[in-house]
């Protein structure tokens, strides 16, 4: 049997690879970056919502299951440049640095994931202009290393604001969908900071809090146990105080129906999830259907969320829409099973 190609080494791709290997199927894992682990590794995720487990505790066992196994051929720093259907599956061209090799594969799992929204596109928040306006993916690394300091002067912040739905639920930037993670991750960050530094005030500005299902517990606890403050309304603009370096967040408190203008030492933007560059490229190479949002569309999103509808091509993880790590891992398992069944037919 020709190997099964897994495209993308994030949680979904790692999970698919691990399951395929445990089924004894030869697997070719291709990752664009020079490391495995996807966005969680790239941005040094700290604790993971909702259970507040360190990201390493979740990612490392996944990585262990795919490294050093005879069934798994790992190709890092490699991208797919061509894919053609053959009698037995696909013939794919893989390019790394300066060489391109062609390989025969029996089935394909697209686990090409998401990219964080580029917060500079919401210019009113001053991201990229004011050093103390951070994207929450950058704050993850800071919390992870316990170095939550203002980039502008290296001093510890006294008051931090989170702005949710930056580049999500917004037709102005063309992203009307919900990122599903922004609420939980922002609240989790506020909790982590309040755990370690109770002297820092944490404010979350929100339209709706979507800590769906059992994750709601995190939202409640953030108030009950950690005193995180929630203000309903969006910040519409961020400016810098005259003669100082504090940021001024201007918005409407929509519960009290009155304007708010609050100084902060640091403002954190919960940037949304967009289809990853790899996802767009893979869609073109394999001719898989793409929805209006740019994510890959399963043929039956309810009955079979991992089938593309194109024989031999399967989906896993955030390539089909914003997803949490547990969901990505589950889909990796499902896609592995479907790809294995197809390759063995």
């Amino acid at each position, binding site marked *: 049997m020709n190997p099964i190609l897994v495209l993308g080494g994030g949680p979904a791709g790692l999970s698919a690879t691990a399951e395929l290997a445990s089924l004894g199927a030869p697997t070719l894992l291709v990752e664009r970056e020079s490391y495995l682990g996807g966005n969680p590794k790239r941005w040094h995720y700290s604790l993971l919502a909702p259970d507040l487990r360190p990201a390493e505790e979740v990612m490392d066992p996944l990585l262990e299951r795919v490294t050093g196994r005879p069934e798994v051929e790992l190709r890092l720093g490699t991208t797919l440049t061509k894919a053609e259907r053959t009698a037995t599956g696909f013939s794919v061209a893989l390019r790394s640095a300066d060489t391109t090799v062609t390989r025969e594969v029996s089935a394909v799992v697209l686990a090409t994931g998401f990219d964080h929204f580029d917060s500079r596109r919401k210019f009113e928040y001053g991201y990229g202009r004011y050093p103390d306006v951070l994207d929450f993916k950058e704050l993850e690394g800071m919390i992870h290393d316990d170095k939550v300091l203002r980039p502008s002067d290296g001093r510890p912040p006294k008051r931090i604001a989170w702005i949710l*739905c930056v580049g999500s*639920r*917004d*037709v*102005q930037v063309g992203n009307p969908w919900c990122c599903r993670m922004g609420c939980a991750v922002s609240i989790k960050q506020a909790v982590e900071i309040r755990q370690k530094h109770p002297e820092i005030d944490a404010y979350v500005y929100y*339209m*709706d809090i979507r800590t769906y299902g059992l994750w709601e517990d995190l939202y409640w606890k953030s108030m009950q146990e950690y005193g995180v403050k929630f203000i309903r*309304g*969006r*910040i*519409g*603009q961020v400016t810098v105080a*005259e003669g100082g370096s504090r940021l001024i967040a*201007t*918005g*409407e*408190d*929509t519960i009290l*129906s009155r*304007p708010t203008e609050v100084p902060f030492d640091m403002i954190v933007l919960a940037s949304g999830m967009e289809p990853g560059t790899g996802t767009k490229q893979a869609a073109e190479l394999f001719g898989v259907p793409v929805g209006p949002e740019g994510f890959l569309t399963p043929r039956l999103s309810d009955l079979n969320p991992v089938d593309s509808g194109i024989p031999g091509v399967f989906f896993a993880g955030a390539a089909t829409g914003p997803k949490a790590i547990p969901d990505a891992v589950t889909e990796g398992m499902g896609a592995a099973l479907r790809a294995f069944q197809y390759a063995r037919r």
Partner: protein
Amino acid sequence: MSIVARLPRRTLSLTEEEEAAPPTMELTGRRRMTAEERGTAATIFQEFRADRRHREFVVGCLNCGECTTGCPAARFYDFSPREMLQIAQNGDATTLWDAMQEKIWACCQCYTCNMRCRFGNDIAGIISVMRELSVSHGLESTRRTLAPFGRSLTLLMTVGTQVASDMIQPDFFRDWGPFATGSDKVWQVSAEVMRKAIPSDVLQTTRSSWEVSVQTSLELFRIYEETGVLDMLRGLDPDLTEMLIDIIEERREEFVEARERFQDQLAGQTGPVTTFSG
């Protein structure tokens, strides 16, 4: 005798005096509407909801408040574009009526709310629909609100503009930030210079901006006539409307005279002929 028994008796029904002259305020503090006003409010509500623009402008609302954040009027008045949109979307005849009494006139129609809205609503647009209705129904409150603007309205309707660049003070240009006052050390830009940023075709002073060609005036009048603006205005301010119509007629006569003069001149000339029609 217990204290309770000695208390004066209170009933839920109105006293005879109250029946004769019902209170002018409701419990919520708003003025009680007359039967006639309630009727007008119901008609306005129906017309508002039936207006094709309603369906197009009001899409939905997440109540995020970004429209109000960017709104210059919300900083100075008890006004919120979010509230206006909520009333347009979910309100009833009474809330719409209340909003149309005063609040809609706080909007400066700058359309910043539209630019901010992440749901794609045309908030400033729906406010202008409310304004149209309040004018066309000749609401007493609208008459009162617009009374001080007769001069502006006359200028707008006859020459198309009422502001000249030398009337603009830096205080009105807060969005230019501290630079506009010239206090900034880096830019050294004064309000005088910033005013030059106004597009050149409106860079006119009070000496010239109210002098427009007869043709421009007549085009404006034509628009007001064809779109029914004059009829709308008649219900609100008949005197002003009559005055405007007088001005229109005057300018039309001017135009006819000018054309005749031009044709006379043409008759005495040879060579290619250009037409001159209105």
